[in-house]
């Protein structure tokens, strides 16, 4: 950036305003068309299902006339045969019948029970239990599963996630207990239509498709509420309002009321564009999305204030210069800083976008969009809005007093400079500013 060129950022300001407005309207239209945001399970109720991938160990069928129930109590298999004579209960302790082969042999000894063993040498203490218990035996074979016990080559969380990729709602998969047990907590937002049973069946079938029929057991299945209850949502709204009000107050005190308005306008601009982007591309909204939006609020605010600070300083230094020129000089002077800061922040976030996937990648994407928009708005929205507001104010005042708008500005600066006793004003070296201007004239 050469010292002596001033880029006229504000010249086509209405063009940029129109462009931003267009993007915002586009985003909001997308929001309406897509029927709101794609809320993740942090915000929506959903189904929580715990499944275990445990291979089939044996299957048991019964062809007799009695009622035979198979149960697992404290890891031991219990066979209950009830008929007109009463109930006959036998416990097959896993100490006594240490393998599935032994269990099967014992089961075979009951009348009319047939067992087909697939993993006979597996220890019977690995018997897996789920929602299906207790089993009522019939001629249709009942599958008994055994949990994985090898601590190597077990199914990973990513494989489960891949298996469930066909689900439409937002998805969360967590490992439950020791990882080799292959037990997973699956949470799906219930935006997809259909009953709870449909969704349960859908999850179950997808997992079975990937890891084998009869190899999956459901351990628990329930509706869960959102993490963010209504109270929390309500609190968040209050929070944002309070934060914005305080920020406005601070900028008003340190700068001017029009600066406060312009900063808030730029901030709103950034948030609206981000929400539009998230809505149009159906990005999942999670707690991290909120963090990303908040980050961008902080970032954009920071960016805007730095430029405003330069404008404030230059208004005093370059008395008698048209405000529009002051604004352009200020943006130009802080341009290299704006670009370098945006670039370094992007440098920090880009690897996150490139090298990760899922929630973290989404988070990085939100940040990247936000940084680009935030940088754009601090150059093309915040300061031009400030210019428009100041011009309107000066014109109003000028009309009222019958003076020239520029003269009013000069007067205001004069008054501020004399009342402002802070060291900033005094310390500014007029000489350097003049030298700067001279340099300009030389060219």
């Amino acid at each position: 950036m050469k010292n002596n060129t001033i880029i006229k950022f504000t010249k086509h300001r209405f063009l940029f305003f129109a462009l931003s407005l267009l993007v915002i309207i586009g985003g909001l239209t997308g929001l309406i068309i897509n029927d709101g945001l794609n809320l993740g399970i942090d915000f929506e109720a959903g189904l929580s299902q715990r499944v275990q991938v445990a291979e089939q160990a044996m299957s048991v069928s019964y062809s007799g006339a009695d009622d035979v129930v198979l149960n697992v109590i404290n890891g031991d298999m219990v066979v209950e045969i009830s008929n007109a004579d009463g109930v006959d209960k036998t416990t097959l302790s896993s100490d006594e019948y240490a393998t599935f082969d032994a269990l099967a042999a014992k089961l075979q000894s009951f009348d009319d029970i047939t067992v087909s063993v697939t993993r006979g040498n597996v220890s019977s203490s690995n018997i897996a239990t789920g929602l299906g218990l207790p089993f009522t035996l019939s001629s249709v074979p009942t599958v008994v599963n055994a949990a994985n016990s090898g601590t190597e080559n077990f199914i990973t969380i990513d494989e489960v996630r891949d298996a469930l990729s066909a689900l439409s709602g937002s998805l969360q998969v967590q490992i439950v207990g020791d990882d080799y047990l292959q037990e997973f907590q699956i949470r799906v937002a219930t935006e997809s239509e259909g009953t709870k049973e449909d969704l349960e069946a859908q999850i179950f079938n997808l997992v079975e498709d990937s890891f084998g029929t009869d190899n999956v057991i459901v351990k628990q299945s329930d509706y869960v509420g959102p993490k963010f209850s209504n109270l929390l949502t309500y609190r968040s709204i209050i929070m944002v309002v309070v934060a914005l009000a305080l920020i406005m107050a601070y900028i008003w005190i340190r700068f001017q009321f029009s600066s406060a308005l312009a900063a808030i306008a730029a901030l709103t601009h950034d948030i609206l564009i981000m929400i539009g982007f998230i809505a149009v591309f159906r990005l999942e909204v999670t707690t991290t999305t909120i963090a990303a939006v908040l980050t961008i609020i902080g970032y954009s605010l920071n960016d805007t204030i730095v430029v405003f600070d330069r404008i404030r300083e230059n208004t005093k230094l370059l008395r008698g210069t048209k405000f529009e020129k002051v604004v352009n000089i200020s943006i130009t002077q802080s341009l290299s800083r704006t670009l370098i800061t945006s670039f370094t922040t992007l440098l920090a976030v880009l690897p996150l976008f490139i090298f990760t996937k899922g929630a973290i990648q989404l988070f990085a994407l939100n940040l990247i969009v936000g940084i680009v928009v935030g940088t754009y708005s601090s150059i093309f929205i915040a300061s031009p809005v400030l210019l428009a507001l100041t011009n309107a104010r000066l014109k109003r005042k000028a009309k009222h007093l019958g003076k020239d708008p520029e003269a009013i500005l000069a007067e205001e600066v004069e008054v501020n400079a004399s009342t402002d006793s802070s060291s900033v004003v005094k310390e500014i070296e007029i000489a350097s500013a003049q030298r700067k201007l001279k340099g300009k004239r030389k060219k």
Partner: protein
Amino acid sequence: MSKRGRLIVVLLVLAVCGYFLYPTISWYTFVPQETKELATGSKEQIKEYARGQAAQDLRELKDLVKSNPEAQLPSEFSFMKGIAKDNYKASDLKVPGSWTIANVMNGFANEQKFFDALEQYYRSDLLDMKNFRGKALQLGLDLSGGMSILLEADKEAYEEKLERSVSDAEVAVAVQQDLEILNNRIDQFGLTEPELRLQGTRQILVEIPGAADPERVNSFLKGKGSLAFHIVDDESTTQLNDYYISNPAEKYNNDGSLRTPEFIAPGRIVLGVYSADAYGIDEEIGASVLYEEVGLDGVHIIEALTSTDPITGRPTVNFQLDSSGGEIFYKLTSTNTNKRLAVVMDKKIKAQATISEAIRNSVRMSGFSSDQAADLAIVLKTAALPISLDVANQQAVGASLGEDSVRQGLNAIAVGFVLVILFMLFYYRRAGLVADTVLILNLIIITAVLSAFNLTLTLTSIAGIILTVGMAVDANVIIFERIKEEYRLGKSAEASVKAGFKKAFWTIMDANITTFIAALVLAQLGTGGVKGFANTLAVGIITSMFTALFVSRLVFDFFVQKVKINKLRISWRIK
């Protein structure tokens, strides 16, 4: 401030950071995995482990003595030597010349004492480690997983309380209220970033990062209703204890609860007296007979303040009563002077004290552990749970982001960080080195502060750190660009640095204060992830201002004033 003074400030800050970072660094790098697992277990597990280890050691040593009476003490038990030596000296015995196992054992009054010493060795080691872990930076649910606890509403107790049958819909409403109260309460407990959800209509699912103490979870489920004051029937108590001593077999029912002998008059109840043992676990130390009629219900307690008894140094709880509670309590204490008063919590007598005079508004009781006292104070401050909750199920869950993604994410963050460092070095040359130094310093301070305040690191707080890194770089960029401008005008290096910092000062202050305001509001009103983000951001803003305006300045001043560098290497174009 002189440069030396400023340097001292910077070094002091670094020293404080080192102090707070020490647990985090050693926990994540030096503590062996096995110890970590043991230390993250519940106190009960630690107790079991310590006892088991001590018993095993004792057997091993006894076997060694049996096979060779002159066997020397194995070196891993040398810590027992010191204790034995002290014991010998304390009882005026001659300290033996050689430390055979037999000699060491003789240094203890009996085998139990020897066992206790062994147990204490294991216990204090693990409890210290557990404590240590509490001081290390915690990773959130999304990054490292934690504990999932399913709470279930106790419908029967609710019906008993309301003295009528309740519909499922009523239970659902009460559970919903419970959820809101728990949300509030958990925040105050300082449990870091838990997640709560309604599950079905009667259950609440709580997820807590790290390995949560089941005891801790239990403590925040309790409510005001679980606390009551009862008058002790001293005569029956003496009778009861005599009876228990002479008939040990009659003390407990099969389920382990205390048995009420027939001679106890109706209208009296037998309850165990509990005290926290060395592990902080409630241990039964006796039994008392109380009048069943509640002297004062816990609902009358407005506040519970914790303090330390100036004489005994034990934690005490000072209960403040509301006005009607004060009336009841005054009547109770004036008619029962010289009798004993018991504080009953969850059917356990936590404290007993003799009433010396009639009391109206506040009662001070000791007998709680300091953790219990603090938890109690919080529970009493928040609303009571309409329907009581029991832990139905509890298990460990993995990171919600997935272990692999977390690893990728952390690597990516490291790559990004290195890129920023390299870019600054490339673009600002020697001055970039200053920026990089303060950037790293910044990260160190943030991590130290996060550890010191026991904050949890989640994906959202990492976002806060990224923003902070951005802002810290930004502050330096603003300063450098200003210095460059001044330098281009032909000023000396020293004057450019001075003017650059001066002009950048308010720019940086204004930009950071506005963001800081946003962060403070979010930290106050936000919950969960938002709060974590805001906390990190707030901390980061302060540290980045400190590092940019104070540390960078010091480095620049040092080079231009002391080293007398008169050429600033701040960009490629200025030579």
